[in-house]
């Protein structure tokens, strides 16, 4: 059974490239194009359907990444689903806050390319 990855990312090109790359790597990828939608998926998921990893953009329509993290924290989801942030922002304040909430890694999109992202994912969930 392949590992499930949930991507919450509104930028279509990036999202598509990521999905394509990760599927090629053998992951089961689910994509949400706005924050609220992504959060719904997390809320609705039972133990079996919870993703093994969440790739989360911070600036999202519907519901900002930080709120998703806060809710996951409240729901105790963050311990069970490792989160890697893929963001355009690299502001220390945001990064610090995210780390406090239990985020595993923070990637600035312009500083990485898809291959590197996949390496990070492997690092987290194998």
């Amino acid at each position, binding site marked *: 059974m392949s590992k499930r990855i949930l991507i919450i990312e509104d930028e279509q090109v990036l999202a598509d*490239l990521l999905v394509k790359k990760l599927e*090629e790597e053998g992951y089961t990828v689910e994509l949400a194009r706005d924050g609220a939608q992504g959060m719904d998926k997390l809320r609705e998921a039972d133990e079996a359907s919870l993703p093994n990893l969440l790739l989360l953009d911070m600036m999202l329509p519907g519901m900002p990444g930080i709120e998703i993290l806060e809710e996951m924290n409240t729901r105790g989801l963050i311990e069970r689903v490792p989160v890697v942030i893929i963001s*355009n922002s690299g502001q*220390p304040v945001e990064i610090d806050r995210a780390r406090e909430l239990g985020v595993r890694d923070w990637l600035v999109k*312009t500083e990485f390319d898809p291959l590197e992202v996949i390496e990070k994912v492997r690092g987290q969930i194998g």
Partner: protein
Amino acid sequence: MPAGRRSVSRIRAQMVEERTAPQEPEGKEERKIKTLLEDISLLERYVHELSVFFPLPLCFVSPLGVILEVNPAFEEMFGFKFHELIGEPLEKILAKEKTEALVQETLREHPVHGQEMEFRAQNGSLIPVGVFTKARKDEQGQILGLFISLLDLRELKKTNEELKETAQALQVERDQLAQLQRAVEVLLISKERPFEEMFDDLAAILSAALGASALAIWRPTDDGIGLSPAFNWKLSDRYMRYFREHPLPMRGGTIVGQSAHSRDAMFTSDLFRDIRATPEAWASGTLQAIQKEGVVSLASFPLLVNGELFGVLNIYFDRTHEFPESERRVLRVAAHTASIAIGNAQYQEELKNTQLALMNMLEDTDEALRRVEAERNRTQLIIAHLTDGLVVLENDARISLVNPRAEDMFRLPAKALLGKRFSELGTEERLRGLAKALAAEGELFRAEVSLGEDVVAEVTDAEFGEKEGSRQRMIILHDITREKQVERLKTEFVSLAAHQLRTPLAAIKWTLRMLLDGDLGDLNKEQEEFIGKTYRSNERMIGLINDLLDVTRIEEGRYLSRPEPGKIDDILSGLVNTYEEDAERKGVTLSLELPPEGLPLLMIDEEKIRLVFQNLLENALHYTPKGGSIEVAVQRAEHEIKVSVRDSGIGIPPGQQGRIFQKFFRADNAKRVDTEGSGLGLYVSKNIVEAHEGRIWFESKPKGGTVFFVVLPVKG
């Protein structure tokens, strides 16, 4: 013929008659008589000589008042001849009633003794005499007449009269002196009065006492060589004006000049006959002016005040006036007194000035008090209108002052706060945070404290004094709610901008990468070449955006994250490794020299410090031509570490070296090598180094290469 002789001869004649009557022959009796006669004759001569010699007038008068005998002194006194008196009644020379009284009294055994009477002389004048009388009787007690002796009182009377006159003169002088004394008193007493007034009084008194017609004080002219009248009493304006325009020289030639020059009093009873009235004085018009004024006589007295010539006091008379010694004395005293009075007046003036100065000082003090008061009011106003909240803690941290802004921020009135401690006010929701901060912090601190939900204040707690053994502190609450909002908005904006710009760049980057990696199908050589170039352009764009974001953050003052212990040697080794390949490709040698004893950990933001050396190395690589070298070396000092990055590159033009750390600045020769480049690298580097309390500088020669030095402190 002397009276005494006459009367004795009569006795002798009688005796001769008695002798010749019996006609007896000269015998014993005759000899006796002859001896007696001789005795009488001797006595007669004696009496005669005595009466002639006797200097006092003497006469013998019959009981009926007929003059029987007078002596030469008597004749001389009244100017009568002997025969004009003998046989004449005494009334001829003495008033009738006086004569009768004198004769009667004397005959009644009441002789007169020194009674003063007046006898009429031959020329009709009355001669005062003292009268002495004595009745003369014979053996039987029959009154024969009376002697009258006179004492000439004329000299005595004259002396008396003179004495009286002298006494009168003395009285006058005494009066003058008294008046002058009054003048002196006026001058001395009138300390409070202006000198002009005193001068007028003095003049009036001298005029009354001496008959002076005018007075003036002449003062030295500004140049000190002349004199002109300054104060005057009863002198005409014309006279004053003339001598003000024509000052008299301070030397001989004029009375006033000579007096000033010799510092001695000068007198002239008649100016125009005075030998000092020189032809020059006439020629210059001086005397004419005086003559016109009607002045004839003059006295000049130098007025010396504290040994200095104040001026000359002139006393004028409109007639000739002798100055008797007594008057001169008095005038000298008056002048001297005037000097003293002037001295006094000057002293008073000084006193007045001193008093004025004191008054001014008092006023100044008042003014200072008013200023202090105003300042206090102002301070109170400032405190009241301060846009910051202000709370003063005194008397064991009790609130003693709360300004209106603080009341607003606390949402509590001052009366609910005064006299309380913040520790007691912790129950108030809004004050909880502040109470906690004040309790926790040391003596002086600055902290951000939330007051309720909606206000954030930057709180400064500062001690400013001590009162009654207790620290005085002021708590300043600077409302930073708005700044906080702005800060948040800015952060949001930067995030947004970063997102907006970076998202498409990231999309391009990822797509191009996948294309290049062949993930989206194989590319032919030309395609691969173009896409590779595009990828690198995009990377530069991303770099530029990153630099801009860094600059924004630097300017917001929140660029550095918290420093942590880091190893500078690791950072440098890593970077040298990274760039070794590039250097080799470019034909430039790159070396790193670390001290063998190793390096201490530094408190650094590792990522930012890496960026600094990355910038320096990239620049060195970029601007060092093929065959050159880049040497990175580290030196260790006691409290710091010095890193040098030396290249043999194009150098920095001397005229542009001062601007090299400026934002967006790129040297001309650098632009020629490479048109790309943001001009932000060194600006960002400098900010990073300085945020670490380090220093960055360089030494460079055109075409002679550049060395950049970075010094970072070693802490604790």
